[in-house]
């Protein structure tokens, strides 16, 4: 849904109403869990909740941009594994490597794969789901090939590298700091720069955007490039955090990321998605992962519950939207 001109804004727009509902839902869950287990709202648990959700949040930003262009990227789990593996191998070979260089290496490798998906989708018009499904296979296979089926374990990584994920800045875990920086940059980029607005324009109406002279293909390519870069970053953070790189790292993680976006109100048909909603969606998913074990729900239930919450969220979304559209029609009739 395109944004309405400023003078038509009502007190609460449908999107904001939706986010308010989501916020209330999160608070309700938080309260319920807190009553069952008072550990939930302790500082240490909250910190671990956000530390565990940071990587998901970083990836969700990239996925939102891709979804906004009417695309989807299923290859990010594989890209995380590949960049994580390659940086871990590099660190194991050159223990003196500054952590900053490792992060940069991950981002660049990720961007190469993102660019490949981008070319397939934007230049060669392959359906995004097909192109990235193929990329997912190729990259996952390459991960096993470069590692020779071996793991890179904690003792092979330098302390400096592991400190990327365990270190603190101003008393806050590095992962959270990086996520906050990503969100601030993204929020500015999306709302206040020309390129950011154009990505939304292309997503809400590709034909109109192209006729108005926007470089549609280049903008779509850009979305996949950013997604690739963020996946590369996430790959390095992932390996630093878990202090181990394996062939099957982050397998299926793309689904969690897409789920966070959908919960956050990002529309898969393009053009819609707000940073605030995204934060709520990510936090909700993080709480589900964090809180269910706290109230003794078996880990085997987590997947099913997550799926049901996603389905409930998208259906509620549709019902709310139908309602507002009917209201709009009725108003026009009078």
């Amino acid at each position, binding site marked *: 849904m395109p944004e309405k001109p400023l003078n038509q804004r009502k007190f609460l727009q449908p999107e904001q109403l939706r986010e308010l509902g989501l916020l209330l839902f999160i608070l309700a869950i938080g309260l319920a869990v807190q009553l069952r287990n008072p550990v939930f709202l302790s500082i240490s648990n909250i910190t671990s909740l956000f530390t565990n959700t940071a990587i998901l949040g970083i990836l969700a930003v990239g996925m939102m941009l891709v979804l906004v262009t009417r695309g989807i990227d299923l290859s990010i789990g594989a890209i995380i594994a590949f960049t994580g593996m390659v940086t871990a191998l590099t660190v194991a070979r050159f223990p003196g490597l500054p952590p900053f260089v490792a992060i940069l290496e991950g981002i660049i490798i990720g961007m190469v794969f993102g660019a490949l998906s981008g070319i397939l989708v934007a230049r060669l018009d392959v359906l995004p789901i097909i192109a990235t499904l193929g990329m997912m296979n190729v990259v996952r296979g390459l991960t096993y090939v470069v590692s020779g089926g071996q793991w890179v374990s904690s003792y092979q990584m330098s302390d400096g590298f592991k400190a990327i994920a365990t270190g603190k800045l101003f008393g806050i875990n590095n992962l959270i700091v990086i996520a906050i920086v990503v969100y601030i940059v993204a929020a500015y980029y999306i709302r206040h720069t020309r390129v950011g607005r154009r990505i939304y324009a292309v997503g809400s109406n590709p034909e109109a955007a192209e006729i108005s002279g926007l470089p549609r293909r280049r903008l779509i390519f850009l979305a996949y490039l950013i997604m690739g870069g963020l996946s590369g970053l996430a790959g390095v953070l992932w390996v630093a955090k878990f202090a181990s790189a394996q062939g099957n790292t982050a397998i299926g993680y793309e689904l969690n990321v897409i789920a966070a976006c959908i919960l956050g109100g990002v529309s898969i048909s393009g053009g819609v998605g707000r940073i605030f909603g995204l934060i709520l969606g990510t936090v909700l998913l993080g709480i589900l992962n964090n809180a269910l074990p706290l109230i003794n729900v078996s880990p085997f239930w987590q997947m*099913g519950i997550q799926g049901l919450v996603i389905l409930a969220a998208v259906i509620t979304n549709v019902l709310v939207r139908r309602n507002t559209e009917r209201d709009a029609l009725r108003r026009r009739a009078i």
Partner: protein
Amino acid sequence: MSDVRKISIEKEWSWKGFFLQWEWLLVLVLIVVFLVNSLISPYFLTLSSLIQTPSTFLDKAFIVFPMTMVIILGRIDISVGSTVALSAVVMAVSYNAGVPMPVAMIICLLVGTIGGGLNGLLLTQFKELSHVIVTLASMIIYRGIAYIILGDQASGGFPDWYSFLGWGSIAGIPFILIVFAVAAVIFGLVLHKTRFGRSVYGMGFNSTTCEYSGLRTDRVTLIVFTLAGLMSAVTALFLTSRMGSTRPNVATGYELEVITMVALGGVSTSGGIGKIGGPILAVFIIGYLSYGMGLANIQAPVVLVVIGLLLIVSVLAMKFRVSPKKRKLAM
């Protein structure tokens, strides 16, 4: 409707057109795969080996038929792997709870059918929802339910006769190959010779037009997705029979392999174009290819890379083949 018909099958018949079909290219590829395989192993190109090998890869091939329909509709179903797992798990658990095996097998088919039907129902009731989202959600939910039922246990201990499904053969031909052939004929007839099949193609080209022309588009969507669920359950039957037991994590990634087979088979992912023969050939190409790579001691990850590249290349090749035709349609 008559336009669609003319464009998608009843082109002017000519020898040149006949031999320029995608399927002939696939036949050529299949022959190359055969030749390379027989260079690797002298035992490959014997009749018995050729006939016995398919039973190692045909289990997932049953999903290829409904997936072909789903993709001709211009949609995609990524929940099939999870449906396989869920129906297999329910079958195993109900058998071990004392249900007789034949009944448990029927329950398996029912679970698959319901799973697919729910997808179809959601898609027709909430048209705003994308098929990607709906099948993504059910992919997570079905796999989740399988985990809820079985945890990380395996369940098995089936009666001896059940292994006949995956391992047995009649007159030297594997039972699974016979069932596959029968299913291929049925699906081929339904897709190419019935009104229902024509509606699938029509909706792939332009769903709105079909709806305005009085086609019951909702019913077609519902049936196609239900079939996807049913055939996933058939896959579950054969897969479980071959493995002897089942776990909640079986058939992970099947959706990818099946979609790759359909795309390689010349079915356009933008809908409306493709025949059943292509995907069937693709099943054997990919099957014999992986088998041959196994013979040559090539690691599984490399096979993964090859399948991924194959998917991308075949979709690209289709693009360049289809686009002039579509352009003509637009004019």
